[in-house]
C-alpha cells in the first residue's frame, strides 16, 4: 500500500525519503539466462521466479444450510431452533451444538442491534473493491447467537455504535449469498 505523507509533520519542501512504489506481482519474461563457465559460480546465481495462475471453479453446495439462502431470496432471515434446549441460532445450524438434536427452521425478526462492528479499509483480494465496508454482528431479541452482515448507510466507524438498532434489507435480485441480506441504521 502507498505510504502517505503526513501533512502535520512534513516541512516545506515536503520530501518523503521513505517513498516507495507499490509492490506488484508482475515481472518480465526472459527467454535466455546467462550461464557461467565455472559451475561453482552457480551458487551465486539469483533465484529464477516464475508465475503460475491458480484458478478453480468450485461447485459448492450449501447442503443443509440451503433453506437459509432460499429465505433471503424471499426476504426472510431464517434461523434454527433446538426443540429440546429451545436454543435459537441466528446463523443456522441443522444440529444443536448443545445437545446434538436436529433443529427446526424459524423466521427471525428483521430488526436487531449491533453487537459489535468494524470498518475495513483493506480486505481480502476478492473484497478490496468494496473497501471501505462495514461489518456488524447483529443480535436479535429472543435469539441466542449472532449474524454476521454488512452495514450500509453510515459513513465511518464513528457513526456506528454498539447497541444501535439496525434493520434488514434484501437484494431484489438475489445472488444466493449471505450478502443478499444487509443492514441499515434505524432512523
Amino acid at each position, binding site marked *: 500500500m502507498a505510504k502517505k505523507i503526513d501533512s502535520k509533520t512534513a516541512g516545506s519542501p515536503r520530501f518523503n525519503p521513505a517513498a516507495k512504489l507499490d*509492490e506488484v506481482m508482475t515481472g518480465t519474461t526472459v527467454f535466455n539466462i546467462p550461464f557461467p563457465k565455472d559451475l561453482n559460480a552457480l551458487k551465486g546465481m539469483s533465484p529464477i521466479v516464475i508465475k503460475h495462475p491458480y484458478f478453480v471453479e468450485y461447485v459448492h453446495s450449501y447442503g443443509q444450510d440451503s433453506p437459509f439462502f432460499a429465505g433471503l431470496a424471499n426476504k426472510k432471515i431464517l434461523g434454527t431452533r433446538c426443540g429440546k434446549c429451545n436454543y435459537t441460532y441466528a446463523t443456522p445450524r441443522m444440529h444443536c451444538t448443545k445437545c446434538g438434536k436436529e433443529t427446526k427452521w424459524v423466521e427471525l425478526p428483521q430488526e436487531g442491534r449491533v453487537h459489535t462492528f468494524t470498518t475495513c479499509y483493506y480486505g481480502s483480494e476478492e473484497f478490496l473493491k468494496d473497501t471501505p465496508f462495514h461489518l456488524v454482528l447483529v443480535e436479535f431479541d429472543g435469539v441466542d447467537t449472532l449474524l454476521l452482515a454488512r452495514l450500509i448507510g453510515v459513513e465511518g466507524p464513528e457513526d456506528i455504535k454498539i447497541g444501535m438498532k439496525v434493520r434488514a434489507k434484501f437484494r431484489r435480485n438475489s445472488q444466493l449469498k449471505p450478502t443478499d441480506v444487509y443492514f441499515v441504521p434505524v432512523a
Partner: protein
Amino acid sequence: MRPVYMVSGGVSKFEKARPDATFQKMVKEAFDYTMGDVPRLKPSMIDGSVASYFSDHFTRQLMAGIMATDYLGLCPKPNKRIEGGGATGGLCFQGAWEAVASGRMDVCLAFGFETMSHVQTWKGNEFIALASDVNFDYPVGGFYSGYYAMMVNRHMHEFGTTVEQLAMVSVKNHMNAYDNPYAQKRKRLTIQDVRNSEMVAYPLTLLDICVMSDGAAACVLASEEMAFKLTDRPVKITGVGTGTDMMRMADRPHGDVILAPNEKKSDYRNLKYPGVHSFRAGRSAGLQAYKMAGITDPIREIDFVELHDAYTSSEIQTYEDLALCKYGEGGKFVEEGHPFMPQIEYGLKLKTKGTIPVNPSGGLIACGHPVGATGLMQAVFAFWQIQGTIKKHYGSGELQLKKANRGLIHSHAGTGTYVTVSIMERGW
C-alpha cells in the same frame, strides 16, 4: 505418560520473501542449526518427525511435509503433517510431545514452515480468510483483521480497553525485537506512531497487526534418558493444553466464565462469556496446562510468556485467558507495565515493569508470522530463554531474562478456534 524434554531448536530468519530458497531448504536451515547446537545428536538418533504448515494454497504443493522430511534425510522413519490454522506450530510441538510421552519415540523432531510470499498480500489475506465458514462468514467480507477488529471493539465496549493500550503492545513487541536478530521488524515506536499508521480495520492499524513471512523453525524433543545424554541443559515440558471453540464468532455462547484457580465466581457477576470479546479455547488450553504443571497462581509461578500476538488486541485478550489478570483487566495490565521487559527502555511511563515479560522475543508482530513455523519459533525462543543461552543465539544478551526458570508458550488459530498452551521449565 513419561516426561518429555526439549533438547534443541533452530529458526530460519523470518523474512518478507525468501525467493532464494524453497520450503525444504528453509526447513533444512532451521534443522541444521538445531543439530549444530547439540553435537551429540546424530540424525540416526531421530526416531521420527512431525511437520507443520498451514495452507496448501500458499505452498501450491500437496504433501509438502514429506518433501521436507526427505530433504532432511529422515526417510523412511515416521512423519505426519499437523494442521490447525494459526495454532499449527503449537499443535505440531504437542504432536512431538505426544510421540515421546507415549513411548512411541525417544527422539522426535518437530519442524514447520510457511511460504507466504508466493502470493500478493491481499490474496494471502483471502487464503487466510478461507479459514472461516465459507457458507456464512467468508462471503460477507472475509478478512481476519476485520474479525479481530470486531472482537476488540466489543472488548473495548465491555471493559473500557483503549486504543492507546493496544498501541502499547505494539511499542513493547517492536522494541523487544530490536535486540532479536531473527525478527523481521525491529523498530522503536511511540504510541502516536502506531495510531498514525494506516487504518486497516477500525480500530486496528497497520502496526497493530503482524505481517506475513517466509520462514521455518525446528525443535527436538526427547525422553528423559536421551535428553540428559544429549545436553546438560534440557528443558522439561511440564504441561500441555489444547482448547477449541466454534468456528463462527456469531455462534460463541454468552454464558459463564470458566474460572481459573485464582478466580472466584463473584469476580464476574454480569459478564457474558466468552461472547466475542474473549477466547474460551485459550482459557481451556491454559487451565489444562496449568493443572498438569501444578500451577495455581500463573502470574507468580511463570517467569515469562511467548504468546500469539497476531494482533495487539489478541495479546491483551490472551493475558486474560491465561489468567495473568482478570477478564477485563488486560488493558490496564499492559498500561501498568506488567508485560514489559524490566531491562529495556521503551520511552513510556510505566508504573511496574517486568512482573511477567510477555513476548520478550518481539512476538509475531515484530518477528513475523510464517504460520506453520510460528508456534515452533516461540518454543525455540522460550527454550533459549530458559537455558540462559539468548546471548549465544541472538549475539547479544540484551533480551536474556535474569529469572527464566519457567515459561509459557501459546499458539492460536482462527478467531480463537484452536489454542495450545505448553509450559516449559528448567530441566537440569
